[in-house]
């Protein structure tokens, strides 16, 4: 009896299974397609090519063919790999020189497994400061100061390098390093090419300087020993002991007309040069003269002036009929009835 029940149950189970298998078999082509391909039902093989996208793309087959050496491989083999990377056909829009290259991950790979190659590229100018800063920022090259020719110079040019140094050695040590590097490079720069200098890095180092040293540092900047960004002069405004007129002279020395540069005008106005207020007035209607990168003429007018506002000011500015009266450093009054 029990045997009979067992057989009966077994037959039902088998029947259920066989029925399911037959039912499943009808859908197997669909399941197979979903399991083993990612092809959309429509596919794209007949769609038109977007030429711009194609032109901006690097050669993907060449990217897929890149084969990094093993960490134990020779320096020559690693350099051969770099040569292979640099020979890849890049798109029109993004080359391989900066940090917008699609090959950036390979530089990280090299930095991780054979950092000597990165240092060699750095010293032979085949790898720029931006890539170097990116790699340091991402936690690669932890002991870079021991492997570059002038660690102090790197600190002055790369905030990422400085952050790394602060985290490794502490704030005091980092500030002293900046101070030393700054004065040394300023001395070396006499009559030679000007090195780049990040003013926020200098500000960091100035905390470790005496008042006299800070003034001397400012004198060296005015003497154009370095190449600086005039938009960043505001970094130095919080440092005690620096003369506002000298800071203003830095802006005048280094500023130039360019759509990405104009925020220095607000800074100049803040430091007391009424001419910058005048120069911002024509931009009031639409800011179109300098639309990019954080420049807002009207905003500067709001912050640093009183008097005329709104459409009447815009109209007066259009007629060249606005007088800018300086009240105190960084504060002005706008009145109608003056020529620009």
């Amino acid at each position: 009896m029990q045997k009979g029940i067992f057989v009966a149950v077994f037959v039902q189970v088998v029947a259920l299974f066989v029925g399911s298998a037959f039912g499943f078999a009808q859908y197997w082509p669909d399941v197979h397609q979903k399991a083993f391909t990612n092809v959309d039902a429509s596919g794209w093989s007949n769609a038109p090519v977007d030429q711009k996208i194609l032109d901006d793309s690097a050669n993907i087959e060449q990217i897929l063919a890149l084969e990094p050496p093993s960490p134990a491989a020779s320096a020559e083999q690693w350099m051969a790999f770099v040569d292979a990377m640099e020979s890849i056909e890049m798109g029109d829009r993004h080359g391989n020189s900066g940090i917008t290259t699609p090959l950036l991950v390979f530089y990280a790979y090299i930095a991780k497994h054979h950092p000597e190659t990165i240092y060699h590229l750095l010293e032979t100018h085949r790898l720029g400061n931006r890539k170097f800063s990116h790699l340091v920022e991402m936690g690669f090259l932890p002991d870079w100061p021991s492997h570059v020719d002038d660690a102090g110079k790197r600190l002055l040019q790369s905030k990422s390098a400085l952050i790394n140094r602060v985290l490794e050695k502490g704030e005091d040590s980092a500030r002293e390093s900046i101070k030393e590097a700054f004065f040394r490079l300023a001395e070396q720069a006499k009559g030679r090419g000007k090195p780049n200098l990040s003013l926020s890095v200098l500000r960091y180092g100035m905390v470790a300087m005496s008042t006299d040293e800070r003034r001397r540092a400012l004198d060296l900047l005015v003497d154009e020993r370095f190449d600086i960004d005039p938009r960043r002069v505001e970094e130095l405004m919080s440092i005690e002991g620096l003369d506002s007129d000298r800071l203003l002279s830095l802006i005048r020395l280094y500023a130039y007309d360019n759509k990405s540069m104009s925020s220095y005008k607000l800074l100049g106005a803040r430091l007391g040069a009424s001419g910058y207020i005048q120069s911002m007035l024509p931009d009031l209607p639409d800011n179109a003269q300098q639309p990019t990168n954080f420049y807002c003429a009207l905003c500067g007018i709001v912050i640093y002036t009183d008097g005329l506002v709104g459409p009447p000011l815009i109209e007066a500015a259009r007629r060249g009929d606005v007088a800018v009266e300086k009240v105190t450093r960084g504060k002005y009054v706008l009145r109608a009835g003056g020529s620009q």
Partner: protein
Amino acid sequence: MNEAMNIAAVQSETHQRGNALATVLAVLACGVGFFLIGYAGTQIYLFNDKNQRDVARLVGSAHQLLCEWGIRLPDTECRQPTMLLDDLVDGRPGEPLAKAFARMPDMSSVVRKLQWNDGNEADAARFMAVVRNVGLARTNQSRGNYEAMDKLAPKIASLWRKYPDMVVASACVYCGSHTRLLEHLIEDSGENNEADLERIKAVFSGNPRLFRLINEQVPFDPEYQYRMARVYAELSAAGDPRTAEMIAGILAENEDYDRLQQWADGGLNGGRSLSELDLSSLPRELVETAWRQGVSMAYDDFKLTQFLFKRGYRPALRWVVWLQSSELPYIQGYLYERFARKYQALLDQHAEFHVTNGASLARFYNEYWSRIFWDETQKTWRFE
């Protein structure tokens, strides 16, 4: 007697045979029934596309397992442990991959074609380079690229677990939708983040935005947070409001107002850094610095404007007068539209002007600006 017994025995046997036959037929009939249930039930289940995909996933996983054991099945291939661009060039064999990608309308379509099947670190680098390349070629599709990261993150979850540094370093922090991808990966990793925290620390400490991403999921100890916040305040800038707020919060908690001032005075989002703080507990100069930083880029924070407007800060008054008396798209974008009524309410409730809106407001201010002053007792702007 014997004959009767024989007849009875035969009849009994026949009866038993009949019963057995009936039982067998019943079992077979039930079997047919179960067969039909199985057949129809399976088809009804697989009629649903989602169920098909679920089953397909199981089949794929089982197949992968068999491949790992070295067992091959007919009509299927065992994929090599590397990235595979599935059937990318179906219908156009030999076509360059870049061209095949260029036929696709958006990044999401591209991502659907990408598949990470596990591999070594070199494979990971190649994969991320391809991802980066296709994204860079579609820089003008920023919105589509951003949304595609939602789809890409789950595909590379295992890559992320093994080689997070390769993923993070594959693009600059503020490039394209890179941060969006990292946000997903970190969120999806959940408790795995804690296990890898020490390894991830080195990768994420160099940049405040990266720091914020991981700190939100797996907070660093307070001492480390403050140490990093000090460094960022002096040497970096917030690339987004959330990062600005986080670092500001850490500095405020430690009452480091000098560095908070530096942080608020830097970058696009410095002016947003105080949004989550009690402004009345902060030095006034700090609040003014943050306000100026935001306004100088036409990116003000209404909370700061409101705070300073109601405390007699004249530039804040002028800012609101400009906003409510002029029509200038470059200062009245989508952010302004969200708060337009609130800006107007400031004038209506805290300024005793003859007019508080439109070109008449500008004319009024121009005529009486030297006679407008802040009445601390009445908490209102008045003129005499």
